[in-house]
């Protein structure tokens, strides 16, 4: 029997004394840095931890954070949200999705507003519930608007598999699964954000394995440390980055070894590969079109693909963000939420103008929520 207690997995990695001791160690070793560190934390979960625990205030001025595009709700362009709304408005249809997606404004309304207007739109706790809803409503079309990075993709693949195995004929999938490596590569190729190190995502890496980031040290000579989401994990990851830079190394390392391996979850990877394939183009909010940066249903399962089946009602013109919203610029690592003219005034979590304020993983939402830490 292990001596580890469940609460150790929470409290142990949030211990204030450990946070302070790591911050001190980072400050000591950062004196030897050859240049300031501009660390991109790719994932919105890390942005949340960094703001919640006030990590910028604990660290020397030579270390700054650039918030990355790893928030699936934030990067969804408005035309895709309009797809979801158009699908929900079809006759005899139930639209299902996850998380904060229902609150993100499309070109005119959000899914939440359409639900209030009477359309059958349901947020799910788990995608598996889609099967149950489809079976309970055999005379209705049920469309699952699937979102998320590599973390959430195998769950969609598992539901597709079950749909086929259980001969469910009224469940369809609108796939918006996106991939971390092409987005990060697009930001690095652009170069304007001047990033010189990365904290790699935690749970994307549980599925895909840390190996997916190897091109970053290889191509751009930037250290990558895959860290857990707890504050102790993030600080330990930063310490590892500081040491790499002081020793003039640019390596891929894993801090979050209790859950991440180089190879990842191969069962989940195979499941994804069976049902989904890279799509040639996907437009990211702020970043624009990135080839092979998202997934779609394989052609042999096209009979489940809502984008193909209902393609004639789906709008395809790119739609720009609200002209005052700088979410796109923030997602590219070129601005902080405080630089936005409408941050905290016209745009708040209750009345969001842009997706970065909607999602709990969005940078604007994290800054708004933990504004007291910044003051």
């Amino acid at each position: 029997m292990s001596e580890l207690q469940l609460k150790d997995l929470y409290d142990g990695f949030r211990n204030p004394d450990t946070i302070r001791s790591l911050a001190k160690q980072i400050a000591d070793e950062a004196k030897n840095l050859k240049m300031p560190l501009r660390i991109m934390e790719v994932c919105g979960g890390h942005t949340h931890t960094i703001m919640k625990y006030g990590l910028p205030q604990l660290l020397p001025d030579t270390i700054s954070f650039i918030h990355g595009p790893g928030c699936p709700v934030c990067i969804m362009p408005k035309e895709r949200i309009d797809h979801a709304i158009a699908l929900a408005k079809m006759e005899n249809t139930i639209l299902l999705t996850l998380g904060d997606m229902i609150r993100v404004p499309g070109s005119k309304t959000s899914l939440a507003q359409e639900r209030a207007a009477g359309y059958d739109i349901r947020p799910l706790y788990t995608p598996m519930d889609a099967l149950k809803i489809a079976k309970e409503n055999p005379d209705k079309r049920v469309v699952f608007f699937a979102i998320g990075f590599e973390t959430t993709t195998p769950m969609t693949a598992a539901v597709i598999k079950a749909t086929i195995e259980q001969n469910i004929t009224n469940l369809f999938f609108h796939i918006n699964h996106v991939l971390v490596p092409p987005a990060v590569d697009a930001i690095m190729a652009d170069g304007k954000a001047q990033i010189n190190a990365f904290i790699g995502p935690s749970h994307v890496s549980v599925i895909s394995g840390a190996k997916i980031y190897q091109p970053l040290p290889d191509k751009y000579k930037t250290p990558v440390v895959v860290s857990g989401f707890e504050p102790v994990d993030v600080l330990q990851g930063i310490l590892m980055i500081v040491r790499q830079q002081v020793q003039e190394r640019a390596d891929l390392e894993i801090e979050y070894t209790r859950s991440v391996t180089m190879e990842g979850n191969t069962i989940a990877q195979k499941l994804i590969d069976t049902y989904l394939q890279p799509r040639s183009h996907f437009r990211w909010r702020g970043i624009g079109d990135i080839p092979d940066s998202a997934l779609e249903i394989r052609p042999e399962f096209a009979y489940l693909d809502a984008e193909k089946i209902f393609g004639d009602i789906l709008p395809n013109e790119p739609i720009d963000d609200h002209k005052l919203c700088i979410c796109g610029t923030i997602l590219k690592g070129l601005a902080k939420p405080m630089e936005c003219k409408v941050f905290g005034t016209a745009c708040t979590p209750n009345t969001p103008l842009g997706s970065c304020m909607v999602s709990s993983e969005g940078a604007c939402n994290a800054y708004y929520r933990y504004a007291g830490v910044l003051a």
Partner: protein
Amino acid sequence: MCLSIPSKVVKIDSESNIAIVDTMGVTRKAGLELVEKEDIKVGDYVLIHIGFVMNKIDDEDALESLKVYKEILEIMDEDERQKLVLEDDNCENRGA
């Protein structure tokens, strides 16, 4: 969206391919579609994401990390104590 919660497996229902897990006192079901069934046992720590077990947490590794942090704290405490002793030794106003 990518946040997952450490939980402890309390029961496995092989027939419906689900694990019953305890997430800090809350009992939930989680699908086992994404893991090798033989790999997950009662008492294991796992990460749960939107209703699925994502992986098994390496508890030896977690313990090792926690031990390292504890040692760092002890070293720092010792350093602090020595610093205090040194400051005390160098205190010019002793007895003032």
